[in-house]
């Protein structure tokens, strides 16, 4: 991955067009609803405006190459964890948050560096990347021992481990995808399809939503929305098949299932955390979306599942 490659990569160029068309199409639909049919859209506009900013930033980072992509994912994970720490109150414990930040940085480093003895093909040190949680959890468990403290430490360790494994490491898989031979296809498809799945769930929910999906967790999500999004996500791999020419029908089905179901589950799992803590959003950084975690929640769930599925059937690097 590099700017030079990106300019000559048919997959990257195709996604530039696809995303442009998707944003323009979305704008036209919203415009017709707002001015043509006089519907009250409210917060949807700010959600849309934020997309207009986020999409080019994401494309620019991927265009810039492998290293910027991995650094970008690592920064998103760090700031995502920061939101989690602020929402749960863990941020007051600088030892624990510092340990988790160090773990997140290590995930980024393992994605960037090659195997020290050259025993793995290509870039990235996969064996270490998948083993980072062992070391991070060992360090997290070490913190109370070093500080000679026990009271309330189980909660802090648990929050630290969930924060690291879920937000740092699982989301970090998205960065590791930048090492794949077909990095543009995997990265762009996963991000585009996951976000489209979110938009589809919202749209189908708004149009046909009757039956709550998980009433105790997220009252606004409905079965209609989830199934509509799943249908879209099952069709999309076939429509964008050029993204992964090496995939057969079975892998296309799995891709659809991972994004269609995983996307919803990622959303719901962050909702569980928010519900238990008692906040509405994880932050207010992105107008119309909430915090960083509210935006990347589905990707956290989808990215590792997709990477391991693709890596099972094909040489990743």
């Amino acid at each position: 991955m590099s700017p030079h490659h990106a300019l000559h990569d048919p997959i990257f160029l195709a996604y530039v067009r696809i995303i442009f068309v998707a944003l323009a199409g979305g704008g036209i639909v919203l415009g017709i609803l707002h001015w043509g049919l006089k519907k009250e859209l409210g917060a949807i506009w700010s959600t849309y405006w934020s997309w207009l900013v986020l999409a080019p930033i994401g494309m620019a980072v991927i265009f810039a190459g492998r290293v910027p992509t991995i650094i970008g994912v690592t920064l998103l994970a760090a700031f995502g964890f920061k939101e989690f720490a602020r929402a749960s109150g863990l941020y007051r414990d600088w030892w624990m948050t510092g340990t988790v930040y160090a773990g997140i940085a290590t995930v980024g480093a393992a994605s960037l560096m090659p195997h020290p003895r050259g025993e793995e093909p290509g870039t990235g040190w996969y064996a270490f990347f998948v083993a980072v949680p062992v070391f991070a959890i060992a360090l997290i468990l070490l913190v109370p021992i070093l500080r000679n403290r026990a009271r309330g430490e189980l909660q802090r360790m648990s929050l630290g481990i969930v924060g690291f494994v879920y937000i740092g490491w699982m989301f970090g898989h998205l960065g590791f995808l930048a090492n794949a031979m077909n990095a543009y296809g995997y990265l762009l498809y996963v991000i585009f399809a996951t976000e489209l799945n979110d938009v589809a769930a919202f749209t189908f929910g708004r149009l046909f939503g009757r039956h709550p999906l998980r009433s105790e967790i997220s009252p606004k999500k409905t079965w209609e929305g989830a199934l509509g999004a799943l249908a879209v996500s099952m069709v999309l791999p076939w429509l964008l098949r050029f993204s992964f020419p090496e995939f057969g029908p079975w892998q296309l089905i799995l891709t659809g299932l991972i994004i269609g179901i995983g996307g919803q589950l990622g959303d719901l799992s962050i909702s569980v955390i928010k519900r238990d803590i008692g906040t509405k959003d994880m932050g207010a950084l992105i107008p119309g979306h909430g915090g960083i975690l509210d935006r990347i929640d589905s990707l956290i769930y989808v990215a590792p599942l997709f990477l391991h599925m693709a890596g099972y059937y094909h040489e990743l690097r």
Partner: protein
Amino acid sequence: MKKWQYEPAQDLDQRLIERLRNFPREPDMLIYGLRSLVALIIRGLLRTYCRFEIIGNEHVRSNRSFVLVANHSSHLDTVCLLAALRLRQLHRAFPAAAADYFFKSVPRTWIATVVVNALPFARQTHVRQSLAICGELLANAGNVLIIFPEGTRSANGELQEFKSGIGALLAGRDIPVLPCFLDGAWRAWPKGKRLPRPRKVRLIIGAPRNYAAMPPEKGASSAIAADLRDAVKQLAEQHAGR
């Protein structure tokens, strides 16, 4: 099982600009680390680009709360004073910054809070409240307050009158105050210029003064302000041309 107690940050659902404007702040590791890193880079740049030199550094080596008072003619002034502190002190050092200038737009507010750790001082609307916040900071040990009593950057580099607010803050309080003189900052980066020029900058830190014996009554404020101004002027004359 007993319920876990979460204590979310107070500012979770606030927009970025509102969150940045909050004071006192609740920083986390990331801000702390970023501020330290930027401080090290700024110190390196000052040393090389401005051949920055500090005289009287030993006076800031204190674990008590104290006030730094200096002449103000450049944006360099604040970073120079911060560069004289130890890194540990940095996160408890609060340069009083004009709320109407530094806490308006997002980028400026971000720099003022994350890099400088500035205290929003409402010099035009709420001077009394702002001084009260300063007083609370000084009541706790280990805080450093940085104040430019001229109230704004001097356009011609000359020392202007000191506002009496500094006197009201210090009168009757057992708080050491260090008069400082910044030499060359105006030549390096005067008001209205976009970028600093490579000119030599010196910071001279004077011996601490204390106005605990001055009762906070009428006239004391302006007397203290005038006394501090003389002290800064004296530092300037002592070290002139060296």
